[in-house]
C-alpha cells in the first residue's frame, strides 16, 4: 500500500481530535460541579496538530513509495527519482515550518511487499493533490502559496506519470 504511512498519520490525528473533544466536554462538566476543582492546576492542554502535519506525512510516504518502486524496478529510476526528490523538498520545508525534524524512514528494500506500480503511484499523487487542494483552501495567509505550490506539484507528478 502506497500511502500506509499517511493513512496511519491521519488516523492518529483523528484519535487526538476525539481526545481533545473529550477533554473539552470533561472540562465543561468540571466547571459545573463547583469551585473545588479550580484548586487543582489545569494540565497543560495538548497542542493541536499543525495543519501541515498530514501533508508532511503524505510527502514522506510518497517519497518512500517512489524509493520502493525504484528499488524493485531500477529501470524506472530516471523517471521516478526527480519526483521523489520533489516530495523530499516539500517535506523538508514543511518540517522546518512546523519546527519538527524529519524522522528518517526505513531504507527501501526489494523484499518489502509487492512492487509499487506507476499506476498506483499516479493514483496516490491524485489523492495527495486533493488533500493539498483542500488544505490550501483553508490555509493561513502566510502558507497559502506554499500549500498551493505543493498541490500544483502533485498534479504535475500525476501528469508526468500518465
Amino acid at each position, binding site marked *: 500500500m502506497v500511502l500506509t504511512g499517511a493513512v496511519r498519520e491521519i488516523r492518529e490525528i483523528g484519535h487526538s481530535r476525539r481526545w481533545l473533544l473529550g477533554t473539552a466536554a470533561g472540562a465543561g462538566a468540571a466547571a459545573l460541579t463547583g469551585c473545588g476543582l479550580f484548586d487543582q492546576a489545569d494540565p497543560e492542554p495538548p497542542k493541536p496538530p499543525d495543519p501541515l502535519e498530514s501533508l508532511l506525512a503524505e510527502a514522506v510516504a510518497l517519497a518512500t513509495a517512489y524509493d520502493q518502486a525504484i528499488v524493485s524496478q531500477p529501470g524506472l529510476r530516471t523517471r521516478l527519482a526527480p519526483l521523489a526528490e520533489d516530495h523530499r523538498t516539500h517535506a523538508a520545508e514543511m518540517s522546518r515550518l512546523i519546527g519538527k525534524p524529519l524522522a528518517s524512514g526505513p531504507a527501501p528494500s526489494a523484499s518489502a511487499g509487492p512492487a509499487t506500480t506507476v499506476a498506483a503511484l499516479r493514483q496516490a499523487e491524485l489523492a495527495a493533490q486533493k488533500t493539498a487542494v483542500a488544505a490550501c483552501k483553508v490555509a493561513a495567509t502566510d502558507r497559502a502559496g506554499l500549500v498551493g505550490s505543493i498541490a500544483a*506539484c502533485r498534479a504535475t507528478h500525476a501528469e508526468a506519470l500518465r
Partner: protein
Amino acid sequence: MTKMNEQLGAALAAEEAAIYAYGVIGVHLDSDGDVTEARAAEQAHRQKRDYLVGRMSQLKASAAPSPAGYQLPYEVTDRATALKLAIQIEDGVAQGWRPVLPVTEGAERSTALAAMTEAAVRATRWRRLAEVAPATIAWPGRPD
C-alpha cells in the same frame, strides 16, 4: 482589497502575455499533437483572462492597459524555441497566479489555485513534448 486588485492585475498581465505568446508559438509548430496542445492552452488562457477581467470589473479595479506588443525573451524561429517559450510562459502564468492565493479566500482562492495548477500541468506537458527532463519542478508558481 487594493492588494487583491494588484495581484489580480498581475495575473491578468501574465494571461495576456500568454495569449500573445501562443500566437507566436503556434506558427512554429506543425505536428498535430503540438498544435492541438497549443490551441487548447491558448483557449484556456483566454478563459482565465475573461474571468479576471470580469472579477476586476466587479471589484471596480482598473487594469493596466495591455501592451500593444511584447518583447520576447529570445527569437522564436523553430519548434525547439517555440516549445522553450511555451514552457517559460506556463511557468510565468503559474507565478502570476500564486500571489493571488494569500489575498483570496474560499472558492475564489480555489479558482486561483486551479488556474495555477493548470498552468503548471501544461508546463509539464510541454517539457515532456520537448523532452526536457525532469518534467516537473518542486515549487510551481514560486519565482525562480
